[in-house]
């Protein structure tokens, strides 16, 4: 076991994938000498060279578009989008090409491209640096969408994403980059790529979360203990596909369900989960599925982000509401 930050765990995971498969490439803005603005690719260019760790021109559509071409030629590009808000210039290539080309070729073409996106807020950044764009991509058929929440998962999930034959949108919770935990870098620790995980067991309410909100939910669960409430926390990990059986299993046991994410609630990813849980667990539910997320406004200036982002209190407030039904 090694203690690693989430950023370092991703770095080690990519390094392992690059060692295991010479077709794996890392590409993006500033990923070389600088090691990325978050240093997630730190040292990779030094060890694997400029042919495998490519500082690209400043053009996101170009990054994804050329990654598609490289993948068509048998490479496995891992693209870094510097910040969530800058994935939109690449959205055309991701949505119209990356997601659909395998289908168009009747399965003859495979596009094992990973698009890494540092996501979410909480770091006091300026505009466009704190977005939660997952719903755009979960809504796009043909993409796998995953979100890691801790170093151990990050280490495994990035390797799984790179090995996956499908395009993967890989969300990294940027405000958790510096948090440390034990990572078993020796074992493959392989888990099915689309499996959710119960990260805390409880009996009264199921909290469903992913990425940065997993930790927030764990803190809320701990705090709720004092009120004698037992909250179960499930880390979804994969948003598309969704591990519906793990979710419904938990909700059937607890009878209450709250989805927590940073993105605006309106038409957010939580809506999909709420609908699904309602369909499948209607007779087990003691209260409606509730959602906690950002307001339906653009991400605010950083001095307001503490109000925008769901915190422990907002989660507990929703728990109260669930019990009040």
């Amino acid at each position, binding site marked *: 076991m090694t203690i690693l930050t989430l950023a370092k765990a991703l770095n080690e995971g990519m390094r392992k994938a690059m060692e295991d498969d010479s077709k794996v490439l890392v590409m993006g803005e500033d990923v*070389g000498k600088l090691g990325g*603005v978050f240093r997630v690719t730190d040292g990779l260019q030094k060890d694997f060279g400029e042919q495998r760790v490519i500082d690209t021109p400043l053009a996101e559509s170009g990054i994804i578009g050329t990654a598609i071409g490289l993948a068509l030629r048998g490479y496995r590009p891992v693209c870094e989008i510097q910040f969530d808000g800058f994935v939109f210039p690449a959205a055309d290539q991701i949505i119209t090409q990356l997601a659909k080309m395998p289908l168009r070729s009747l399965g003859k073409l495979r596009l094992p491209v990973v698009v890494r996106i540092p996501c979410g807020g909480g770091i006091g950044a300026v505009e*466009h*640096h704190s977005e939660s764009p997952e719903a755009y991509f979960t809504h796009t058929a043909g993409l796998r969408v995953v979100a890691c929440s801790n170093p151990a998962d990050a280490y495994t999930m990035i390797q799984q994403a790179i090995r996956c034959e499908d395009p993967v949108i890989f969300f990294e919770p940027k405000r958790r980059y510096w948090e440390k935990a034990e990572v078993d870098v020796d074992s493959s620790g392989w888990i099915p790529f689309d499996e959710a995980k119960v990260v805390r067991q409880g009996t009264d309410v199921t909290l469903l979360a992913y990425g940065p909100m997993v930790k927030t939910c764990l803190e809320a669960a701990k705090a709720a203990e004092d009120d004698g409430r037992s909250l179960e926390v499930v880390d979804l990990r994969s948003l598309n596909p969704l591990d519906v059986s793990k979710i419904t299993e938990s909700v059937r046991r607890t009878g209450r369900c709250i989805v927590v994410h940073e993105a605006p609630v309106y038409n957010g990813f939580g809506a999909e989960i709420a609908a699904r849980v309602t369909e499948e667990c209607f007779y087990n539910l003691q209260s409606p599925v509730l959602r906690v997320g950002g307001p339906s406004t653009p991400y605010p200036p*950083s001095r307001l982000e503490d109000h925008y982002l769901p915190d422990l209190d*907002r989660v507990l407030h929703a728990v109260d509401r669930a019990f009040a039904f």
Partner: protein
Amino acid sequence: MTADASRGAEAPPELIQLLTPEGERVEHPDYDIDLTPEEVRGLYRDLTLVRRVDLEAVALQRQGELGLWASLLGQEAAQIGSGRALTEADMAFPTYREHGVAWCRGVDPINLLGLFRGVNHGGWDPAEHNFHLYTIVIGSQTLHAVGYAMGIQRDGAEAASIVYFGDGATSQGDVNEAFIWASVFNAPVVFFCQNNQWAISEPLEKQTRIPLYRRASGFGFPGVRVDGNDVFACLAVTRKALAEARSGQGPMLIEAFTYRMGAHTTSDDPTRYRVAAELEAWKLKDPIERVRAYMFKNQIADQEFFDAIDAEADELGRDVRKRCLELPDPEPLAIFDHVYAEQHSLMDAERAEFATYLEGFEA
């Protein structure tokens, strides 16, 4: 597999210069300019004051008062020269580093600090100053500037737009699309590229194999390279480009050849990718020192003048600092303000819900 450098090589680019790094005035057949002593003193004052605001902002960031700051250090001449070439009716579209242009447009520096402190996303009225909001997404604003110019064209107005962007931005699709639009519609727009050699850690060679000003010819309009550390040249070249645009001659690309003296932003660490010698070489081309030398030599100002400007800069620095510390955090419910122009029921409902939630803590 690095590209064969000789393939892109042509004659070395001509650099339009009117004032040497030593403060010598030189002539240029196409771009000469007559400046009164008063105007020269004004430019010197602008350069000095914006540098001071910038240094104060860096200091404030270091002390935790700003979340981030993008310093203009070294790029003052490009910004003041081009900014002072604008007439009131012209419209400027900046990126996030154009503090000097903002200064020329009369935007109170505290607004710039407010953005980087995180109290708002802009805050000034772009129409009041004809200075658009800062744009963080690289290259987006170039298309806005072209569209605005197309509007000017339709209105038959005596104006042009100017858009600022960096060397890295020239790689973006939007910027290339802006070049195409501007050219095809003969829009009155000046593309002002501050080539400061670096896009965060990536040197110019990672964006282009030809001098950037030559890109323009492929799109069908002229491009020039100007010494970006020479405020006279930047003023002269921009003035002419704007005049031509206003008189229906179409777009122009100006590449101001300059250097980013500091880090990309306060979160950056240039020691990881940049050698110190490069920085030292550019220090000798400082945009303010050369004007100062010129003024001394030509007795356009005496020590008293320089002392007075320094005192004014100190006062401005103090004032900006004080007002920055006094900037209040916005009210929580401000999250819901200004998202829509017209009444919006979802906003109303969410605002009310959030207000109730907040009241719960007061009880």
